[in-house]
């Protein structure tokens, strides 16, 4: 580790390592966050959930979205529609999208999460997974 030689270098390092605790900080106030949960059970991973999740995580970091949390969820029972992505905006019911590809993930992020308008491909669900 090269020594930090200035305030700027310290800031750069802080920005670089920020995401190590970012998830936790967002988790502390998760009710004020837009939560994007990618189902990461075996079925989901087999269908490409990992790529979708990584993609979303990178996008969120790139855009420096402080109010969006990317996390993973378990199998929601929609194995036919994997990868599935659940979106929960603050104060709203959660919405689950099926057959999410990278392209569709981008759309979900931009339109639903940031724009507040739902897009096609919603799986009608009855249960809430974010609250017990």
């Amino acid at each position, binding site marked *: 580790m090269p020594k930090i*030689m200035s305030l700027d270098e310290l800031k750069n*390092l802080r920005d670089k390592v920020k995401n*190590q605790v970012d998830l*936790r900080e967002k988790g502390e106030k998760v009710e004020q966050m837009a939560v994007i949960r990618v189902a*990461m059970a075996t079925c989901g991973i087999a269908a490409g959930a990992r790529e979708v999740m990584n993609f979303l995580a990178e996008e969120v970091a790139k855009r420096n979205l402080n109010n969006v949390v990317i996390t993973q969820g*378990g199998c929601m029972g929609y194995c036919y529609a994997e990868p599935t992505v659940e979106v929960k905006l603050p104060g709203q019911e959660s919405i689950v999208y099926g057959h999410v590809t990278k392209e569709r993930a981008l759309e979900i992020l931009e339109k639903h999460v940031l724009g507040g308008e739902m897009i096609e491909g919603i799986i009608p669900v009855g249960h809430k997974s974010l609250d017990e």
Partner: protein
Amino acid sequence: MSKYTMHILVCGGTGCMSSHSIEIVENLKKYIAKTGMQDIVQVLRTGCFGFCEKGPIVKILPDNTFYVQVKPEDAEEIIKEHIVKGRKVARLLYTDPTTERHISDSKHMEFYKKQMRVALRNCGFIDPTNIEEYIARDGYAALAKVLTMSQEDVINEVKKSGLRGRGGGGFPTGLKWEFAYKNKSDQKYVVCNADEGDPGAFMDRSILEGDPNSVVEAMAICGYAIGAQKGLVYIRAEYPLAIKRLEAAIHSAREYGLLGENILGTSFSFDIEIRFGAGAFVCGEETALIHSMEGKRGEPTTKPPFPAASGYWGKPTNVNNVETFANIPVIFLKGADWFNKIGTEKSKGTKVFALAGKINNVGLIEVPMGITLREVIYDIGGGIKDGKKFKAVQTGGPSGGCLTEKDLNTPIDFDNLIAKGSMMGSGGMIVMDEDDCMPAVAKFYLEFTAEESCGKCTPCRVGTKRLLEILEKIVAGKGTEGDLVTLEELGNTIKDTALCGLGQTAPNPVLSTLKEFKAEYIAHVRDKKCPAGQCSALLSYMITDKCIGCTACARNCPVNAITGVVKKQHTIDQSKCIKCGACINKCKFDAIIKG
């Protein structure tokens, strides 16, 4: 960048570690690996969450799930259910004692609702062994900011914050820094007092275990402010985990150039060494601490001279306690004006307390100054165990006094507690219920102070011993009313004449219980009764006519003091009875009473 989308935090404080939290971490990692998600689910050991009553704690983020009393064998279920299937493990969630409902998010727990974590801001949140996590939480940004300020401005900011020493004395920190700053010398020292010695207190240990970098950063800030290049942490050797984490923090800080020569490219150089103490209570007194660090006998000397003028090896030295230091970076990050809005008029900020005794939620809490004892005991602490009646609370450890029901609405701050005959101390808070005998409590504390007295000055060396002897007599049923007069007179003399804080405050538990619970003392010496039913010498057990003659008591009496025929009322031979209480526990008919 981190690809983790889920963090599992496991408490790695000493308490939870002794309840196998290391195995929990290992098992969690093992089962994560089995699911193949080790690259997206991070398991890490943090510092103390404070809710020690229900440890070990496991917290899952970002969905903020707070699992309590987790065992290593629960790891598999947590992974399989929560992580893989997204279903929370209900049986590991905290159950609210009043509503009897599971609470998943710790924010909704009464224990955390009224807390405000400033000194403990990173405890239970970051990996204390990873300096980058500290930096990610704006760590060392306060130091960076300070290095652009003048020394006077730094000191003024601390003065403005209103921060007072958290080690017990409550002396204004900024003023202390100013004294050390103004004393010119070629060499000065910053000393961190980590010789936490109050029975049951572990605030400083938890901070060092959970967020050692905050102390390192604060010491460097202090070093810059007063003009010192050298810092020393005096820590008791019986805190091995805190020492390990502090050593690691110092080591990484050096690696990152945050300690050592020319910090952050400035002309300021500062480094820290650790000094081990042998665990003597008196070495928390700053002059005794300095002597101990010099390799001398750990005993105090009269102040003045204060360490700010003549401390370690005669050089100007600023001694602050761990918790005091832990507040410093926040003051510079958020500003003195942010800090001084918290608390009361003369006591700013928050205070960490170690809640212990007959209280439901034993643990470590941080609350804003000005909160009432009632809120701490009943809201955060969850009230008295087993629905018993509150009797008293001892604040300030063995140097403090007992506060009672009438003091419960007192806002907690330095001056209020002193006005009520106790003190803030370093933050020990021991709650007593109706079963606690106050002369016995006073005896307990005196045993501690008499043992921990360094033996230097007469009032403390001989006086505390004599106080203790009288208390021993009283609880043994051999006290006289004259003894109560002696207790008070001797106690006041010790308070008035002892050399250091230890001796001057040693009589407090006696004097305050004598004041608040005089009747209980009189019952002991005049009536030879212990109203709380604790002093075995003053108790006798009796079998009432509720006895149906089941013989359970007689069969369980270890000294065969109970006789009687089957189906007839039994009797206890008082000359044989050793007052162990075994008979009461065995009697199913409430037929045995003690009094």
